[in-house]
């Protein structure tokens, strides 16, 4: 689920609204078996960097810049852990949607623990 709102007001953004600056956030779960290691962190950063919006990612322990591979990889988010992605900027909602898709749908192009088991690991 993605929540977006005007960055300078309190109302939720409506579908179809065009805005200058939005604030958007989503909570995602890591679904690939090996978690957010280097390569997934790189993919995340590569996508995040395409957007103008600033992107912040956090778990319970730390809050980091989603465009820095150093900071992202240091989160060391393992399988099943949850991350909060917050974006702020004109393309915030697109950024959050693309990142959510990478983490939860594409799963960084990596197998889940179940798939890994079936592959005979």
């Amino acid at each position, binding site marked *: 689920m993605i929540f977006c709102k005007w960055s300078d007001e309190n109302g939720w953004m409506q579908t179809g609204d065009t805005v200058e600056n939005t604030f958007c956030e989503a909570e995602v779960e890591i679904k690939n078996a090996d978690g957010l290691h280097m*390569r997934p962190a790189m993919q995340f950063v590569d996508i995040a960097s395409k957007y103008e919006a600033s992107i912040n990612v956090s778990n319970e322990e730390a809050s980091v810049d989603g465009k820095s591979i150093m900071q992202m990889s240091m989160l060391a988010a393992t399988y099943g852990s949850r991350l909060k992605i917050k974006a702020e900027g004109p393309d915030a909602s697109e950024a959050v949607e693309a990142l959510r898709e990478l983490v939860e749908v594409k799963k960084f192009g990596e197998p889940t623990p179940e798939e890994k088991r079936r592959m005979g690991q």
Partner: protein
Amino acid sequence: MEIKKGIAVSPGISIAKCLVLDAEDYRIPRRSIQPSQRMTETQRVRNAFKDAIEELAHLQEEKKEIEGRKIRDIYAVHLSYLRDKSLRKKITDFVHDESVTAEFAVSKTLRDISGHFAKLKDPYMRERAADIYDIEHRLLRRLVGDKREDIQRLDVEAVVVARELSPTQTAGFNKEYVKGIATGAGGRTSHTAIVARSLGIPAVVALEDITDSVTAGDTVIVDGNRGIVVINPDDATIQQYLEYAVEFAELSHRLDAIKEKPAVTRDGVRIVLWGNIEFPDEAQLVLEKGGEGIGLYRTEFLYLNRDTEPTEKEHYDAYSRTVEVLKDRPVTIRTADLGGDKYTQSKRYMREPNPFLGLRSIRFCLQNLTMFKTQLRAILRASVLGKVKVMFPLITNLQELMQAKMVLGDVMEDLHEEGIKCNSDVEIGIMVETPSAALTASMLARDVDFFSIGTNDLTQYTLAVDRGNELVSTLYSSVDPAVLRLIRTVIQDAHKAQVEVSICGEMASEPESVMLLLGLGVRILSIAPPLIPEVKQIIRSVTIEECNKVARKVLSMNSERQISGFLRDAARKILPEAF
């Protein structure tokens, strides 16, 4: 003039200008800078990043076709890290806020990050620490690379001064120009000591803060006989040392004169003297010094100082060259003893909390079978050229030995199938260098042709003392009662099983230990080539009767101190000239 006292580990005297080396491991001392230099240093950081990115991008482009996806991903990840602005900022801020050098800031920042990974619970995540080491080294090569290459580009005689020398560094030494070695860390059995002795370079170790006391270009005297280093000596001192050097050269010549004579005790017992070597070039030296074979051919150097693993051809070239020099005399090739303090570039995956208790030596080989088999193929191919013996290091139990033998058997079969000749009866032996191997020697004996007791590691593992750690190195002694009991067990069990047994540790070349070892029943000693004449001289001066007495007496003693005192006295009485 400043005089420093350390431990003499390789005899001889040298006087030359000094060259100060940073550790290969790039352990960068905190080097403060003046605030006015901060701009220069932050620029060096930025340049290092820029150059490293260029280098890596080039490499990525170049390897695009040949490497698999995994390798390309690694390059991509490293590039992504190097392009990370927040990483660069962290480092430049550090230079600026703390007024430190670029290399210190790079090293500290990246080590903090790799430390973060190394602490994680998830093993897969933990291994990411290795990526960070790689990135750190790529940057440091840019920043301190020039200083590192100095040693290989050396074209004037010099004394090398360092905190500690790594195997990789010493492998690149050119004997012609490296005239002496002085290090802050280390002990008699440290790697530096072993290499210095085998190359015949005078060396003194355990000089503590020596690197802080000298500046590159200072004149330094290394007295490897007395364990003294003199920094910026006055004329009178230089004159005195030049005289010492002449005396020492004369003594060596006298010893060389006995090289043609056999190593026989006064009561007629024949002792076999072999040489320990690292490079094929040393094989000739073994013969020149009167050695009758090679009891330990260390092969790690093939793996060091390079980015890729050695090929079968490179292994084979080294072994065949050595075997050809020795002709039909034995050449005992020890399979790769990597890990612990010796790494290869590509295998430096992960910093282990206890490297000497970790994935090293035969364990490492058994987990890297492709690498292991490459070496075994080359050894077996060389086995038809002369008398090659295969030796597995760090065996701790029978299962490991059987596994290693099985791999060797597989390789043999492969060669047969390919129609390549090898000696199927090649002698197989092990280094006995762990307490577990020593205690189970009677069991292991059934499956080997020979034992070689590696007293250095055996002492370290028995006494739980890191031989390279100067804080505890005084506790390290091969004549400790515990170590001697294990050595005696191995010798007795080998005799019972009629398995050849030799000693290849440093202990075999210490004048005061030679009598004891002969008394314990050893008849084969394998030592650094330059020391063969000296040990032969000792053998020719004693009787086995006397040696047996020494051994009996020593085994009744209960402290290391008592034993070493007694051995020194005994040796002095019998061979005053050796002391």
